[in-house]
């Protein structure tokens, strides 16, 4: 049975997460308690809350980067509902490869690999031809204002803003049904920020489900369809 | 009990005691049963140093009988010191007839050559072997070479031939050229010139190889396939000469090159003295035509 387009593609229920620091005698730092959230295609949910409230932790739990202590994270993947909390690594990796894109604040630079190949890699992994992947990578780098003279250089030497845009291009080269954005415009100037906003909106309108942290209120207003308050466990009633 | 009465009286027939000969014969039987496989044996001290044919002598001593006719060659020649000594040794301790004629011999002990005259059924060729392990220069550990033989893991031998072509443009090995016996074991043919390798293949004679220092015996039974290793695009080839023997005119035998005076004048002679003399005899005698090849 094909998935119902109005049904959520990401469903978080009763998610909890603490960090236990063994170096400090097993001190437990609760960050998320009983978080529930559902996101449908075409929605862009902006996570808001004060600094340290756990927005970034939530996003990383959704991506499988942080391990959920309790609760459930279900995503629609290959026409099926897949549980990400406690999933085997290969399941999480397959979900990341096809379904779940993530734009972090920082690009994890791979030594010696040119920017164009960094961007093209996720598409190649999904079976795009070399020519096709490069064409899309060039298009995205162009839209994001990376000058062609930088395309064949490894991004290690790029400025923060340039690295961030390479990172965005890399996450947008595949049409992931679900996108997680952690401050995608943090180190960008006005002009480039507008370009990124436009790309995000295009994806959203094409049916991508988006969860993001947008520090910049103008950006948030431009992309978000809904706000989700993230409240630290101690502040809850 | 065999006759132990020898001219000297002090030695058993054929020098070795009967138990030792039995032990060596058992090793030989096993070697014949597993062509190309190196069988360890309890090598004895012989009245000559290692390197002078102690392995070959023990094999000959174990198989020789009064009815045999023995020929001994060293580098093809019957008249070198080593060949003469060994021939006289057996004439004395084993009471056997000796000959220099390849065709007349039943047992031929050899160092570094195979006679040019084709061997026949019933003849036994005994090789003196300095280093029996063909993989020794590539793999120093005996435990590992044994495993490689046991599992037929012979990639490393091919590697050495590859390396030779890479360095010299061709397989530069000219003697002790490795062979595959009966499609199973890689064997050192002893330091014979590769010219002689084709004579080992499906030979009607029995080939026995004795290594005295390393105490190994191996064998190639009559009519056993013996293939010289090579590459498809660098096939095994034997040496050829544009010169011919200065004495008998042979072009098809293995020739030794000699410098004969101070000006560097060179002369080519057959390495196999018996073959050369027979051909000289034929040339002087009645039918002047070249013998059939």
């Amino acid at each position, binding site marked *: 049975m094909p998935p119902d387009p109005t049904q959520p593609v990401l469903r978080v229920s009763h998610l909890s997460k603490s960090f236990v620091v063994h170096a400090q005698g097993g001190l437990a730092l609760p960050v998320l308690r009983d978080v529930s959230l559902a996101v449908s295609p075409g929605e862009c949910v902006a996570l808001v809350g004060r600094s340290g409230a756990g927005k970034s932790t939530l996003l990383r739990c959704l991506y*499988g980067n942080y391990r959920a202590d309790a609760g459930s994270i279900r995503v629609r993947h290959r026409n099926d509902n897949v549980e990400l909390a406690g999933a085997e690594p290969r399941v999480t990796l397959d979900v990341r490869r096809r379904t779940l894109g993530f734009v972090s604040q920082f690009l994890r630079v791979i030594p010696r690999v040119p920017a164009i190949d960094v961007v093209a890699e996720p598409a190649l992994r999904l079976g795009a031809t070399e020519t096709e992947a490069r064409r899309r990578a060039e298009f995205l780098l162009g839209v994001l204002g990376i000058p062609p003279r930088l395309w064949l250089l490894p991004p290690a030497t790029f400025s923060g803003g340039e690295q961030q845009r390479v990172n965005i291009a890399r996450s947008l080269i595949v049409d992931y049904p679900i996108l997680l954005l952690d401050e995608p415009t943090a180190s960008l100037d006005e002009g480039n920020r507008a370009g990124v906003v436009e790309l995000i909106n295009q994806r959203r309108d094409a049916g991508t489900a988006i969860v993001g942290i947008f520090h910049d209120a103008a950006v948030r207003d431009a992309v978000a369809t809904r706000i989700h308050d993230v409240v630290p466990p101690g502040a809850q009633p | 009990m065999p006759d132990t009465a020898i001219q000297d009286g002090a030695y058993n027939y054929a020098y070795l005691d009967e138990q030792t000969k039995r032990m060596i014969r058992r090793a030989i039987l096993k070697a014949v049963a597993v062509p190309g496989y190196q069988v360890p044996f309890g090598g004895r001290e012989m009245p000559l140093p290692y390197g002078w044919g102690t392995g070959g002598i023990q094999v000959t001593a174990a198989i020789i009988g009064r009815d045999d006719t023995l020929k001994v060659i060293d580098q093809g020649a019957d008249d070198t010191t080593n060949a003469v000594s060994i021939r006289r040794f057996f004439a004395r301790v084993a009471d056997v007839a000796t000959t220099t004629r390849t065709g007349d011999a039943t047992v031929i002990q050899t160092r570094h050559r195979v006679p040019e005259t084709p061997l026949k059924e019933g003849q036994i060729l005994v090789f003196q072997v300095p280093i029996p392990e063909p993989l020794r220069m590539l793999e120093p550990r005996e435990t590992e070479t044994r495993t490689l033989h046991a599992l037929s893991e012979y990639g490393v031998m091919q*590697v050495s031939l590859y390396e030779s072509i890479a360095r010299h443009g061709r397989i530069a090995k000219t003697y002790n050229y490795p062979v595959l016996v009966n499609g199973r074991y890689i064997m050192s043919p002893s330091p014979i010139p590769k010219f002689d390798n084709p004579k080992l293949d499906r030979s009607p004679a029995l080939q026995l190889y004795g290594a005295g220092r390393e105490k190994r015996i191996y064998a190639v039974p009559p009519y056993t396939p013996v293939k010289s290793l090579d590459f498809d695009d*660098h096939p095994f080839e034997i040496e050829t000469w544009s010169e011919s023997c200065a004495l008998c005119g042979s072009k098809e035998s293995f020739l030794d090159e000699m410098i004969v005076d101070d000006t560097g004048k060179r002369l080519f002679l057959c390495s196999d003295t018996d073959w050369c003399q027979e051909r000289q005899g034929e040339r002087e005698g009645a039918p002047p035509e070249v013998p059939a090849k």
Partner: protein
Amino acid sequence: MTGRPLLSVRELTKRFGNRVACCDVGFDLWPGEVLGIVGESGSGKTTLLNCLAGRMTPDAGSVIYDSNASGLVDVHRLSEARRRLLTRTEWGFVNQDAREGLRMGVSAGANIGERLMAIGERHYGEIRQTATDWLGRVEIELDRLDDRPTDFSGGMRQRLQIARNLVSNPWLVFMDEPTGGLDVSVQARILDLLRGLVENLHLSAVLVTHDLGVARLLTHRLMVMQGGRVVEDGLTDQVLDDPQHAYTQMLVASILPA
């Protein structure tokens, strides 16, 4: 997710006298996965690798490999002949010290060509062509084909060792600290090369390293070993970014910031 694991390890234990080198280790390695084994020196990771690769016999447990040629095989119950055949056709093993994995006395071309010759390739020109191709793939100048590894730098030797292993198109490669003992810039090049080869050839691999940076770059999954036991395992970025076990937290906290 369908298919079956390439390698299934169960309850693997190896002792040296009274000392337990690795204890009750079990995991499944799936096709295309790169598994990292991390831990400090003496944690048992190299012993575990040697037991997995059939180089050492465990005291207990099993290693089942899904062989391309013969289906499921118990690595430690195979005859030595079949195990050795497996290790030089469907498997590779990259040693930390390239000198242990290479024949130092023969040329680079012969080193690469050995596996081909061992499985019956007998055309010199074709072996040489394949060796040349591989030299290029591991970024060694083609005119070094006839030079011996004794004349190579440490990084080149390691790349040559990689080529020597991959020439038979293995399915599974074991690597023991492949960049250990090399300069940082040389390391980066080898890591990048390995990353590309693993990706493009769809290799599965088990990689032992004490360098968490190497683990992050090359592996999909991690097992953290301490005192011969696996104390934590999971997705690489999750283990490194959200370590659960005290020992893993200590390891992660010990890295100098880049």
